């Protein structure tokens, strides 16, 4: 592109003026800098091209007229007016001029990209994935009250057809739910993104599933789930833990009504596979009652915050006796719920720098600071500020102390 724009200025000594060879109008130059060739566009180059990114500051400005209101004979006014020669002269400043210019520039419009409020924002910028698109449209008398739909994927897909050739479509993958256990996923395709989203949303409303949520905040037990080669390991978490998982799982959990969970995805991270695997896992969960009936044993809960007081959460109609429990039976709740699978929990290696001699050095040097924060807090509680117990006797040992300035006798 660069050679096209190269301009050759030659000096003609006979004429005594500059000649431009291969002169190109300004518009073409501007386009050359800012646009991208058709072939380049197909390869995905220049995605930001075409947007107006700058304002033409030359508009409304005339050569010779500036901030200082000066008359330039021959440039802004004729040299001779009547029979008099006009002199170069400074007139009083025109305050309106600056304002007019600013107004003209404002009228050219803002070119800032569309900004969303943090509440409506999706996973990234102004992109659709992660954004909410409202409840599915009502079908007859049935309305989807309390439902919300979130976009999980919005991408263009292509299909080769005999007579049409390469046909481009937009594919939208969404999840809808009422935050109380009802949820559905669906894929919608259309030539327009808006239509694809609407299709997907309404289809999701027709394919609702019911998911059991434990105590209205998390899953019933740890579980493993798989779709294709995408494997997910889900761990039950206490209240306040939050959703620590892939963003697609997080968004799905938000509309389902799950608030606390940890999930690790292993294998391919195809988004649709992740969501499908996760939903399969949720549906295959067993409630406490189901487990109690399967095992014919009581399910007893122990919570640390209740000092491990045994609470029976589910009981079978007839409980087995101790003698009926076989010695090889799986009695561990988590192991049983996982179907004898065991999560590989890798030991976290200490960081490399802890092996360096400088780390030892640092530890030795920083050792005296180890209790500083605690001491600071206790001093703040004791005195309301960081000060020693000697402060009453020696005020100079208080933080921020300034020696009073001695008054000089005159």
């Amino acid at each position, binding site marked *: 592109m660069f050679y096209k724009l190269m301009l050759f200025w030659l000096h003609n000594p006979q004429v005594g003026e500059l000649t431009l060879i291969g002169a190109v109008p300004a518009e073409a130059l501007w386009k050359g800098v800012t646009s991208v060739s058709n072939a380049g566009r197909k390869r995905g180059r220049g995605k930001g091209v075409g947007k107006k990114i700058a304002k033409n500051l030359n508009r409304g400005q005339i050569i010779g007229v500036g901030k200082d209101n000066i008359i330039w004979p021959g440039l802004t006014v004729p040299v001779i007016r009547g029979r008099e020669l006009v002199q170069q002269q400074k007139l009083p400043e025109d305050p309106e001029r600056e304002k007019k210019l600013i107004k003209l520039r404002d009228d050219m419009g803002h070119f800032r990209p569309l900004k969303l409020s943090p509440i409506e924002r999706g996973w990234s910028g102004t992109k659709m994935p992660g954004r909410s698109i409202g409840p599915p449209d009502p079908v007859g008398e049935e309305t989807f009250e309390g439902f919300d739909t979130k976009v999980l994927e919005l991408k263009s897909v292509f299909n080769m057809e005999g007579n049409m050739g390469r046909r481009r479509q937009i594919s939208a993958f969404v999840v809808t739910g009422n935050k109380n256990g009802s949820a559905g996923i669906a894929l919608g395709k259309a030539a327009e993104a808006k239509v694809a989203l609407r299709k997907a949303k309404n289809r999701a409303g027709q394919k609702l599933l019911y998911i059991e949520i434990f105590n209205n905040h998390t899953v019933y037990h740890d579980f493993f789930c798989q779709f294709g080669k995408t494997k997910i390991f889900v761990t039950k978490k206490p209240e306040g833990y939050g959703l620590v998982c892939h963003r697609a799982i997080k968004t799905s959990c938000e509309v389902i009504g799950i608030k606390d969970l940890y999930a690790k995805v292993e294998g391919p991270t195809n988004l649709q596979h992740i969501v499908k695997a996760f939903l399969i896992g949720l549906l295959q969960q067993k409630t406490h009652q189901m487990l109690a009936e399967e095992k014919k*044993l009581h399910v*007893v809960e122990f*919570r640390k915050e209740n000092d491990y007081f*045994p609470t*029976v959460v589910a009981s079978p109609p007839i*409980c087995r*006796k*101790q003698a009926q429990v076989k010695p090889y039976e799986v009695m561990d*709740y988590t192991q049983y719920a996982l179907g004898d699978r065991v999560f590989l929990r890798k030991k976290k290696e200490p960081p490399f720098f802890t092996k360096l001699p400088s780390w030892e050095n640092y530890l030795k040097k920083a050792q005296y600071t180890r209790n500083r924060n605690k001491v600071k807090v206790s001093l703040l509680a004791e005195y309301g500020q960081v000060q020693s117990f000697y402060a009453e006797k020696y005020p100079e040992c208080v933080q921020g102390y300034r020696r009073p300035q001695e008054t000089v006798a005159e």
Partner: protein
Amino acid sequence: MAVRKVLSQRDLINMFCRSCNMLFRVKCASEMKTVRSLANQTAAGERDPAPLFFNSNVQQLLKKLTRMDLRTIFRTKRYGAPLKAPEYKFMTTEELDAVMKGAEEKAEKKLQMPPVIKARSEEPEVLSSDYELQGHSEAKFIFTDITFGSSDRERIMVVRDTNGVLRKATREERYRMNETYFPQPGRSIRMPHMFEKEYLERLLDQRSYEFVLDRACLQFEPDDPMYQDVTATTYEAVDRAQHYSALRSTRHFGPFAFHLAWNRSIDSLLLDLIQTDRLDEAVALIQLYHIVNPEARSVSANFEPGLEHKFIQAYVESDSKKRNVLELALQANEELHKQRAETEAGILRAHGNT
């Protein structure tokens, strides 16, 4: 004597500094505004509550009044630590019963009452007066036996004063040295500000009774006058506001009930028990009152099972300070029992059993 003298120069300096600190603390404590008047303390100090409190009959009555409710004892308590996901176990009925029994034992341990004892006198025993040592130093020396195995209360501690007197350490000195050599987690050397009058009042207004009492148990020895002040203030606040459920099924209800009986102010609690139809507990409370105050006028009344109203009536008539209110409540309760009996008889009759 197994006194470990630490004689290196650095330690001597340390000791010197510590004793300085201690002097400072003693000074501060004396200047600090105590919550209740001293006159009240001396009045209570004349009788020793310990033999009464540890009496097995009294302990039984106090346990009955505490009302062991496992749900309340094991209620959710969050201490700021991050929560953990609950654990689950499959259990047979036998295993479940065993676990529940274990929980009950644990609950009993959790309900162990802090002792109610007399405040310790401040006069330390003088071991020897060596006035030839007068002015040996500008600070007193404390010698602490830090041998392994002796408890904080039994540990030998002696003080050489600047005037040459060798004496046993005072309560304050003992507390300080114990805290220096054997610090207890959660206990601070200086008294936390929350036990000062203005902050304590604010806490009691917020109904944080259990928090105050728990912290007092942690911070003070039971024979510390400050402990007795704080607990008495809290008990009185609970009684005044009639927030008995805030202390019920905690280890503090026993000492609270004992405090009320000791100070002859059981009437509000008795009213609450009658109104909530807990006559067995009302009887226990009056029995406790009789044991603690043998000079009471209704002491001669004997309780016979089934005649709760009569027993309570005897107390209300001769010893209560809120006679009118209590009598009304008692009458209403009697009426209630009568109606209940009539209904039951009616049901039996309807079923054909006369």
